[in-house]
């Protein structure tokens, strides 16, 4: 019964994640972005935008991609070109993670008013993993735009 409820919740929240990603990419970047079944290939260097959740849901939302996808996202958002993973690219990734998380939680009345977001934390590096102690629920979805892919995850530690 509990497992069935978790699956339902994963389906409901997963659908909202797809809509939030599509909305942010379409409105802010003019890019069509769709969910895909395949996990992005493991790349040596990746960048993660982390947004903390507190209140009705405690946890973290993570938008993660490789360097090439991050540069393309920053280019689409700013209209500038980037040769490296500089501070503007990291800032853009933080903002995209922030907007996707806000657009996602805003779709659910139980979260919209009662779940606060942290300012973004951006992590870059090679072969790192993000760990959460015994998450109550973890939903990871994969997305593709143009020739690039990324993942967006909701890691829920607890719900009130």
């Amino acid at each position, binding site marked *: 019964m509990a497992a069935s409820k978790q699956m339902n919740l994963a389906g409901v929240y997963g659908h909202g994640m797809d809509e939030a990603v599509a909305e942010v990419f379409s409105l*802010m970047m003019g890019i069509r972005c769709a969910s895909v079944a395949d996990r992005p290939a493991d790349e040596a260097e990746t960048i993660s935008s982390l947004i903390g959740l507190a209140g009705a849901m405690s946890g973290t939302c993570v938008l993660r991609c490789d360097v090439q996808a991050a540069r393309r996202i920053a280019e689409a958002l700013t209209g500038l070109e980037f040769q490296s993973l500089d501070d503007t690219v990291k800032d853009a990734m933080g903002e995209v993670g922030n907007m996707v998380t806000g657009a996602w939680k805003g779709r659910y009345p139980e979260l919209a008013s009662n779940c606060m977001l942290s300012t973004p934390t951006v992590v870059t590096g090679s072969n790192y993993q993000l760990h959460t102690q015994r998450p109550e629920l973890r939903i990871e979805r994969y997305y593709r735009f143009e020739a690039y892919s990324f993942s967006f995850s909701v890691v829920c530690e607890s719900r009130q």
Partner: protein
Amino acid sequence: MTEISALIVDDSSVMRKIVERALRQAGVEFAKVFEASNGVEALDVLREHPVELILSDINMPSMDGLEFLRQMRAQHLAPDVPVVMITTESSQDHVREAIATGARGYIRKPFTAEQVKDRILPLLNS
């Protein structure tokens, strides 16, 4: 439309530029655009420079947008200048709190240039 001076407050420099670009697309012409990355910096700008429009994020370090608005009113800085909040926070509680604190408008990120135009231009023309 005459040129205006505006203050854009957001902890993301990328978002400050996007907001400025959206305003220019909406037809706003600037004499000067001031930027601040939090409420403390924004108050400092207002002590030194007159502006005709303020756009502020809510969720920022050091001093968030709602506290900035409260401090601005308490210190009688730019008392008649319209303030519009631009934020990922979409809850009605946040909207009500922002309006109660003196904001004249509220735009949720992500936004379209049309939304910016519809919410900002009437404030500049009134």
